[in-house]
């Protein structure tokens, strides 16, 4: 029993440090998408932080706290993995929000210390320019990462999430 408690403590300690330790180089991904619909129409689809069912890779989405700063959401993905995210900033008027990943297995999404912005702006032609961008470190916090946890793997994975999401959004509202 004592051993188990000790083991659990060690594991928790490992987990706690794993959250913040990271590789040497922060990565960024910016994907922009022109959509032929006014910002409000797109905003209506994405504006509820706990409801990310519009994204093709998300099979289940739940959360609490509404759209207040500190609200949490848990996304279950088509691959079965889960991502827990926290809302950090929300601007109804500017149609933008900012959130961070609280916890994710790097096997689900190979990133650490991930933060992301979602923003919709009028494009001047009656439509919108949607920008989704993220800042994050690779999944492997130490030197010489395996290929599936490299900087490139992290960038590719995030690019995939943004591109597929924005393409779906375009299809839904146009």
């Amino acid at each position, binding site marked *: 029993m004592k051993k188990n408690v000790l083991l659990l403590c060690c594991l928790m300690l490992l987990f706690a440090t794993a959250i*913040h*330790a990271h590789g040497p*180089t922060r990565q960024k991904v910016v994907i922009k998408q022109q959509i032929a619909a006014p910002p409000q129409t797109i905003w209506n689809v994405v504006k509820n932080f706990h409801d990310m069912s519009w994204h093709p890779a998300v099979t289940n989405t739940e959360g609490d706290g509404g759209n207040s700063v500190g609200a949490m959401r848990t996304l279950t993905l088509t691959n079965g993995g889960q991502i827990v995210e926290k809302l950090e900033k929300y601007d109804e008027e500017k149609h933008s929000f900012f959130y961070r990943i609280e916890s994710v297995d790097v096997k689900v999404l190979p990133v650490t210390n991930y933060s992301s912005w979602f923003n919709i702006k009028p494009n001047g032609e009656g439509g919108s320019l949607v920008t989704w961008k993220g800042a994050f470190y690779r999944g492997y916090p130490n030197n010489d990462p395996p290929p599936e946890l490299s900087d490139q793997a992290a960038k590719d994975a995030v690019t995939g999430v943004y591109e597929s999401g924005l393409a779906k959004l375009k299809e839904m509202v146009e």
Partner: protein
Amino acid sequence: MNTDRVSMRTLWICLVGYLVAIAAAATSQGVIAAEFAFVTNQGDDSVSVIDLSSQRRTATVQVGSKPAGIAVSSDGRRIYVTNPESRDVYLLDGVDFKSLNHKGVGKGPLGIALSPDDLRVYVADWYEDRVYVLDAGDLSVIQRIAVGDSPSGLEVSGDGKRLYVADRDDNMISVVDTDDYQLIKRIAVGERPFGIRLDPDGKRLYVANVASNDLSVIDLDSFTVIATIAVGSTPYGVAVTPDNRRVFVTNQHENTLSVIDADKLQETHRLAIGEFPEGIIVHPSNGRVYIANWFDNELVVLDSKSLQIIKQIPTGESPRAFGVFVAGGS
């Protein structure tokens, strides 16, 4: 009456002569020094050279892989750059803007600082949890100092005798005696201290704590934290005006700059500054603050008094500018 006028004139002549002498001294020593900002661009393996008079990028120097840390010698002639991915330190010529030398250092060189006499370079190794002491001339390793977990920001006292190290994943500042390289003190600060800066008097060390969203103020006589000031989200870099009156903190996730009154130890302003602000420094004489915005790929020029943004100067991809990137800056 007449004698009064004569003495006034003498006084004026003396005063003008004195001012000319000061200006001449400044030209021979310091002015070359702070003409440029050197910005590490982690996304394209380069250093942008920014001319601070014309406020334009005038040169780009290729360095190692994923450059982050930077230190500029007091005369501005030598520039040292850490490249955590290629695990080396580059020495650049600050006049001709070319690489002079580079050497492998540790497993994750990141934070970097020079001794005030410009003879030693201190390099924090993020992975090896130690600080390398290098000869500033040939980059050979003089010493290795064991410090805490994930050392990042470094500062050296004005007399060269103390090295301050932010041990990010230990939530500590290590104080090292540079005569015998012994760790003489560890000071608990906020969570995940990263960027640190001494005030120009050398009486205080300011520590930006990334995870607790605050700034620890350490009194260096007593080695105690005399204040913990709440700032914006994810503070990374810190800078101090030469007159010690104001402290600036880049709040990375909030895209803001906290302005702190150093006497009252209170935040007085919080300004929108651009996306993902990181490296920051106050120029030694022109009254301006320079801030590298990682997401926007620009160096913002801010007036330290009026707090107005004067200019946004394009840099390379993903600028970090982690360290003293303008000679004599603070």
